[in-house]
């Protein structure tokens, strides 16, 4: 296929019509990104539990709804289930001495079986056809954007409040300096457990919303969620810093992290519109995240490299002669 025919086959209207869906899904994933932000940035833990707890959120929501509970009750239970998943990772890590990353992997793997159990052994479960009691749905993207935005806003306000309290400050201190926190009488193990539970509660809530949006839960819906969450966190921070620079305060960070999810989904829509194989999406996302994570390191290295030192040395040698 020549370039001309390739470009001719791209229809700008298709891209435009895919945008509302991208924004709606992005807002849902933004909530997940806020959860990842708590562990990744505040506690300095890359928590892989989320791949499992995201699905748990969706599975619990669908099954309880099928059992006849009102949706908001389903969502509260989903949120609590996520918190329990984080609690378990936290206990594995702090009380049993398993490295954080491995604790997350263990819980995630265990959750795969648990999620199948929740869905009575089925790999996926749908809401009843024509289910009316959905907060967000693919069928009504405008409503989904409004509701998703409202959820995000409330969560950001709550997080901003919590991290300003005595306990939230203690949690931030734990992530910043263990020795200092202990010396100030903070139980750092408890703080890590609280952080992991809070993070996974948000992740499960996000999973619950996504299951409503796509109208089913799938045992694989959380696969690679951590990478999408990280992508949103990083994209949000980079853009926030580019726009606000030094003025990017904590509230701004939370807002941009949530927006990071939206921007991620817009980028994904564009990439798909450019006819990238959807099977290659995860590869694409992983490359993006790897790049963004590597850039700060490479920047530092370039200021501090042996190759540069060698060049400078040679130049001064020449000048010296």
């Amino acid at each position: 296929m020549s370039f001309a025919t390739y470009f001719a086959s791209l229809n700008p209207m298709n891209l435009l019509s895919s945008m509302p869906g991208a924004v709606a899904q992005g807002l849902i994933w933004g909530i997940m990104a806020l959860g990842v932000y708590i562990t990744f940035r505040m506690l300095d833990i890359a928590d892989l539990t989320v791949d499992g707890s995201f699905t748990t959120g969706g599975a619990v929501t669908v099954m309880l709804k099928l059992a006849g509970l009102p949706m908001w009750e389903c969502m509260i239970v989903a949120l609590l289930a996520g918190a329990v998943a984080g609690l378990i990772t936290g206990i594995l890590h702090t009380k049993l001495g398993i490295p954080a990353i491995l604790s997350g992997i263990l819980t995630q793997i265990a959750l795969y079986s648990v999620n199948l159990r929740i869905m009575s052994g089925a790999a996926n479960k749908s809401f009843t056809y024509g289910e009316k009691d959905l907060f967000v749905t693919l069928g009504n993207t405008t409503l989904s954007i409004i509701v998703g935005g409202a959820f995000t806003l409330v969560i950001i306000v709550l997080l901003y409040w919590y991290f300003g309290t005595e306990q939230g400050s203690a949690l931030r201190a734990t992530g910043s300096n263990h020795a200092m926190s202990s010396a100030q009488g903070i139980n750092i193990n408890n703080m890590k457990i609280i952080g992991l539970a809070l993070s996974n509660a948000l992740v499960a809530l996000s999973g619950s919303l996504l299951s409503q949006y796509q109208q089913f839960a799938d045992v694989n819906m959380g696969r690679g969620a951590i990478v999408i969450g990280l992508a949103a966190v990083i994209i949000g921070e980079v853009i926030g810093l580019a726009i606000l620079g030094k003025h990017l305060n904590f509230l701004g960070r939370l807002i941009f992290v949530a927006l990071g999810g939206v921007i991620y989904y817009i980028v994904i829509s564009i990439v798909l519109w450019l006819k990238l194989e959807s099977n290659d999406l995860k590869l694409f996302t992983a490359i993006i995240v790897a790049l963004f994570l590597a850039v700060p390191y490479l920047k530092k290295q370039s200021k501090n490299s042996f190759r540069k030192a060698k060049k400078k040395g040679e130049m001064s040698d020449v000048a010296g002669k």
Partner: protein
Amino acid sequence: MLQVNNISKTFNPGTINEKKALNGVSLHLNPGDFVTIIGGNGAGKSTLMNAITGVWPVDEGSIILDGANVTGMPEYKRAKYIGRVFQDPMMGTAPDMEIVENLALAYRRGKGRTLKWGVTAKEKEFYKKRLSILGLGLEDRLTAKVGLLSGGQRQALTLLMASLQIPKLLLLDEHTAALDPATAAKVLRISDEIITADNLTAMMITHNMQDAINHGNRLIMMHEGKIILDIQGEEKKNLTVENLLQKFRDVSGEKLENDRMLLSD
């Protein structure tokens, strides 16, 4: 105020790296005592402080602080009674948080961490007043991130944080060792002022013999996990570096071979 009764600690027991770091140490401090601690590398000075703060449990013996037996308490619980300044200026403060947030964390040492707002407006005035004691201009930089401060500034801030809630015991672990001489002198002067002002019971490890003689009302020397010298009162006031070295030779039967201790003035 502090009673350390015959405590021992062995690291890596049963391995080739076995090290008897504390070997039956007993020490009684009266309220208001300011003890300086000297000794060569591996003498057990920092280990003694770690035992008192509860970084790990001791193998034998007991630690009693103001009448309460704290031997079985983990570090974060003992923190209620103990203020501590580390040797490494990076260790005592949270770099990603503001000066005022660090102070607020210290102000709540030993209290429950509730869901009340982390810093109140009333506190801020109090912190400003305390910061101005340091004479470093930090009172005008309340919202600056601590990571932006110099080592000396961070150490002075840690000192303030350690004494914000009047501690039953203040522990200074070579807290000026990583600073340049002028800053070290300043931080040491501030330490003296804070200890005197609140009549704190304090322990200070130093590698500088002259500092150990000039500060405090009591001096102990450690060697191979034991306290080998304990000098106070008039005798302490009349000490010189020379007769301190002589005493060490008399007690331990060895020469004090620690260049860092001998060479520093």
